[in-house]
């Protein structure tokens, strides 16, 4: 093979090998290939300091990767561009050689450089510039030991490698970056699909970053706005020793806080240089207001962690990248300290971390939203059950003879504590209208003292208005976040909701949390609902108590009235019965034939009988109003007595009907002949009452110049007395109504004056007392028939 062919094959193998690299540390393997191909002991890739211009006296070069035969560590990681061979290669833009490092003026003579030369045994060095795609210029230096031959002044293969390296490095970086982004995406997608615990997600993400960059620390801090706003808590870290505190707040000093406050990433080239004044000035210029002085003694700590001498601690590059949710910072991704080359974070790494932080931000936003929704759904479901239980409790309370609102209020308190996450100090204050004050009616939580329980709050216009009084007066809920109360020092947030219903305010519920600085939105809605519920219960119980009281008063009043009526009825019954009896006897004695009785006397007799009927009717009404059934004391009534009774009743009612209407009656005596030998069994007083009521109705509702028919009908096993008349029609639909107490059809109301409307209602009860029944037949052709059916054995 010719030299050209060998050259080409070497290049091809080098490129293939480089393209096969998959890890970030692959850059060191690529340098190893360069070193091997150029018979070098080791190779270092230098990059310029991104902050300082190349021609500045402070310009430096930093290792971007290295390889040494035998795998020795590199102790020094930066060089001055002005005083190094690598710097010469960059400044002169050519290959430079120093076959005797100790004597060559261009080579670095710092303590770190000398230590490097000594430890590695290198005496020869060759450097060539590397032009990166972003127009920066770096360098590769090759090293040989004393045993190896000198570097030639020309090294075309090496120069070729230097030309190829930028592209290969960028290709490797893209490959590693895309690989990492995909891995993070997969982790997050899997977590979404499986609804995984976020803790496991943070662990996986941190591990992925750690594996990719070989980092000492990967930490994720997150804010949970539903719990504490402005506090960023440690979600996970790969190095607890590096984490000075687990919670960061915006207003505190530090690199991480700066990233949160200013919503920008912070990239520190090397934390070991924090004590160098120039570094501090530079960082202060780059990051306005940065207070940089992490007290943890990072070099010594790292030496202990890696179990290496302090002087061998590698560069500790640091980046804190804010995690956004929309336009709000919800966390920080923090990485520090690669254990192997490449050690430094550059703008490329910052951009990569920004992409990853964005992915984390989206995931966290979704997870927070879903958690909020789940929490809210669970809370509402639980609230439903609690409200049902509260309602059941109130139902039971209402059934008690003296319902007690206090027990209900206390259950309301415990429900509030159950429902609203973090509600720990709760009380219900009710209004004492007599004193114009709110007083503490019920409390929940250990923070309550007796002194607090005794407090009262004036609701008068001229009194000092507390939040509770304001809510009571306005009926509008209020809340305070980040509260610093005197009565309850532990409380961080407070909300006050009114207890009200309709237009009446009963009091307020105070709800305090010690867990976070504000209540989530759904918790406020729940609190309002509970306030309304308690208001309704209050109103319900007040109403029930009031109604019970009224009911008792009515019962007592009715009892007194009934007793009075009964007494009155008793007083009038006697004299009326006596008067009627005496008149009847007097008529019987003076007028053997009823037809001879003068009409005025017939009138008086009829009126007295009507008065007696009214008195008996009142007695029956009072008896039935108490809910007692009537008891019949039947006697046998024969045909003659019954017929006489019927005729007398008809006559009495006819006398009281206007002659102008000319309503007549016909008692069909023959129809009662079946009672001969088989008399009717009935209570005489009740029978008289029933017949009077039915016949009175017949006369009242009959048209002028009509005849009322009264007849007896055998309808086994009953004997029926039927009264029919032509008059105001009774529609089928009203048949059941006529026996209801106090009911009258419209046409009937037009033709009656006095009267309670209880006539047929009393008749119905009289018939039941006889084990018989009352039948009201609907009107056909304006004829109404009413039948009294008596059991007839």
């Amino acid at each position, binding site marked *: 093979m010719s030299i050209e062919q060998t050259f080409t094959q070497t290049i091809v193998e080098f490129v293939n090998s480089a393209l096969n690299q998959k890890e970030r540390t692959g850059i060191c393997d690529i340098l190893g290939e360069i070193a091997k191909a150029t018979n070098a002991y080791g190779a270092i890739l230098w990059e310029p300091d991104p902050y300082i211009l190349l021609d500045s006296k402070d310009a430096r070069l930093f290792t971007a990767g290295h390889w040494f035969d035998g795998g020795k560590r590199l102790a020094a990681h930066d060089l001055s561009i002005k005083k190094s061979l690598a710097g010469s290669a960059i400044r002169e833009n050519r290959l430079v050689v120093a076959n005797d490092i100790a004597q060559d003026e261009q080579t670095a003579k710092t303590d770190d450089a000398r230590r490097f030369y000594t430890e590695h045994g290198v005496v020869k060095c060759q450097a060539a510039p590397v032009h990166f795609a972003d127009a920066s210029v770096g360098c590769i230096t090759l090293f040989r030991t004393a045993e190896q031959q000198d570097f030639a002044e020309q090294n075309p293969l090496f120069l070729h490698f230097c030309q190829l390296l930028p592209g290969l490095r960028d290709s490797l970086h893209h490959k590693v970056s895309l690989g990492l982004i995909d891995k993070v995406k997969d982790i997050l997608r899997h977590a979404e699909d499986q609804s995984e615990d976020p803790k496991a997600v943070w662990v996986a993400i941190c591990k992925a970053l750690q594996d990719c960059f070989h980092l000492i620390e990967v930490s994720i801090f997150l804010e949970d706005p539903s719990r504490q706003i402005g506090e960023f808590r440690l979600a996970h870290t790969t190095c607890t020793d590096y984490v000075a505190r687990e919670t960061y707040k915006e207003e505190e000093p530090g690199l991480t806080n700066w990233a949160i406050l200013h919503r920008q990433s912070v990239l520190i080239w090397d934390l070991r240089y924090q004590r160098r004044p120039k570094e501090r000035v530079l960082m202060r210029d780059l990051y306005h207001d940065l207070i940089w002085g992490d007290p943890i003694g990072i070099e010594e700590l790292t030496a202990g962690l890696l179990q290496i001498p302090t002087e061998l601690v590698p560069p500790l590059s640091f980046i804190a990248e804010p995690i956004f949710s929309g336009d709000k910072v919800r966390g920080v991704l923090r990485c520090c300290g690669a254990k192997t080359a490449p050690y430094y974070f550059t703008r490329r790494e910052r951009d990569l971390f920004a992409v990853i932080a964005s992915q984390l931000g989206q995931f966290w936003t979704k997870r927070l939203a879903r958690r909020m929704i789940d929490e809210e759904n669970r809370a509402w479901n639980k609230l439903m059950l609690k409200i049902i239980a509260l309602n059941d409790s109130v139902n039971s309370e209402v059934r008690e003879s003296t319902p007690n609102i206090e027990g209900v209020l206390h259950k309301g308190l415990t429900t509030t504590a159950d429902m609203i996450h973090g509600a720990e100090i709760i009380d219900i204050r009710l209004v004492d209208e007599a004193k114009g004050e709110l007083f503490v009616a019920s409390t929940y939580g250990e923070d309550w003292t007796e002194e607090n329980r005794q407090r009262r709050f004036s609701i008068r216009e001229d009194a000092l208005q507390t939040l509770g009084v304001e809510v009571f007066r306005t009926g509008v809920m209020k809340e305070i976040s980040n509260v610093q109360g005197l009565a309850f020092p532990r409380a961080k947030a407070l909300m006050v909701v009114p207890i009200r219903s309709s237009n009446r305010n009963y009091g307020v519920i105070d709800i305090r949390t010690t867990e976070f600085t504000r209540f989530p939105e759904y918790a406020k809605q729940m609190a309002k609902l509970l306030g309304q519920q308690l208001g309704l219960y209050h109103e319900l119980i007040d109403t029930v108590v009031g109604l019970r009281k009224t009911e008792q008063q009515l019962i007592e009043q009715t009892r007194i009235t009934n007793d009075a009526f009964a007494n009155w009825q008793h007083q009038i019954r006697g004299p009326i019965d006596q008067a009627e009896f005496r008149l009847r006897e007097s008529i019987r004695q003076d007028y053997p034939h009823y037809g001879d009785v003068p*009409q*005025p006397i017939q*009138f008086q007799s*009829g*009126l007295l009988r009507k008065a007696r009927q009214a008195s008996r009717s009142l007695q029956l009404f009072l008896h039935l109003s108490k809910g007692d059934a009537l008891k019949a004391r039947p006697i046998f009534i024969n045909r003659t007595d019954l017929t006489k009774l019927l005729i007398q009743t008809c006559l009495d009612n006819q*006398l*009281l*009907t*206007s*002659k*102008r*209407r000319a309503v007549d009656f016909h008692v069909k005596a023959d129809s009662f002949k079946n009672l001969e030998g088989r008399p009717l069994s009935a209570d005489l007083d009740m029978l008289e009452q029933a017949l009077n009521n039915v016949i009175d109705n017949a006369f*009242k*509702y*009959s*048209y*002028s110049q009509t005849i009322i028919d009264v007849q007896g009908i055998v309808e086994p096993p009953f004997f029926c007395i039927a009264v029919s008349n032509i*008059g*105001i029609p009774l529609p089928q639909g009203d048949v059941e109504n006529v026996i209801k107490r106090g009911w009258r059809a*419209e*046409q009937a*109301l*037009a*033709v*009656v*004056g*006095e009267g309670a409307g209880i006539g047929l209602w009393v008749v119905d009860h009289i018939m039941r007392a006889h084990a018989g029944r009352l039948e009201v037949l609907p009107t056909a052709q*304006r004829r109404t028939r009413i039948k009294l059916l008596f059991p007839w054995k």
Partner: protein
Amino acid sequence: MGHIVVLEDDASMHPLLESLITKSLGDLDLKIEVIETEADFRMKWLPSVQNTKKQRPDIFVIDVMLRWTDPSPNQPPRPPDVIEGGFMRAGLRCLNLIRQRPSLFNTPVIFLTTLTKKNLDDLGANLEAVEILHKGDINRLPGQIRAALAASRR
């Protein structure tokens, strides 16, 4: 000849009233006209007085509680004021109608009732220039009629 209009729906009172008035006031030669229902008074009697030269009465004797009408196939339905006020205010409604007519405005009115003055006040009665006679004191009716007639003729 004097003319008394009696509004009374209780048929048992008619002979009593006629007997009382006839026996005690026979010297006044009074004609008694009995109207038994509010409907008859409002829909028949009042229009007949208004539209014809029918003799105006010298005095009204009115029962406060009257039924609206008698049962008949064509009985008039109760108007809204009767439905709302009920039979208990029938006499008061008739009084108002009397007072609304210039020809009857000054006619003396005697309320015949079982109600007390307080009951009448509770019913919203305007009892200005109205004599009230309890049915239990019916014997005093002739005297009140005589006095009322004498006063109206002065």
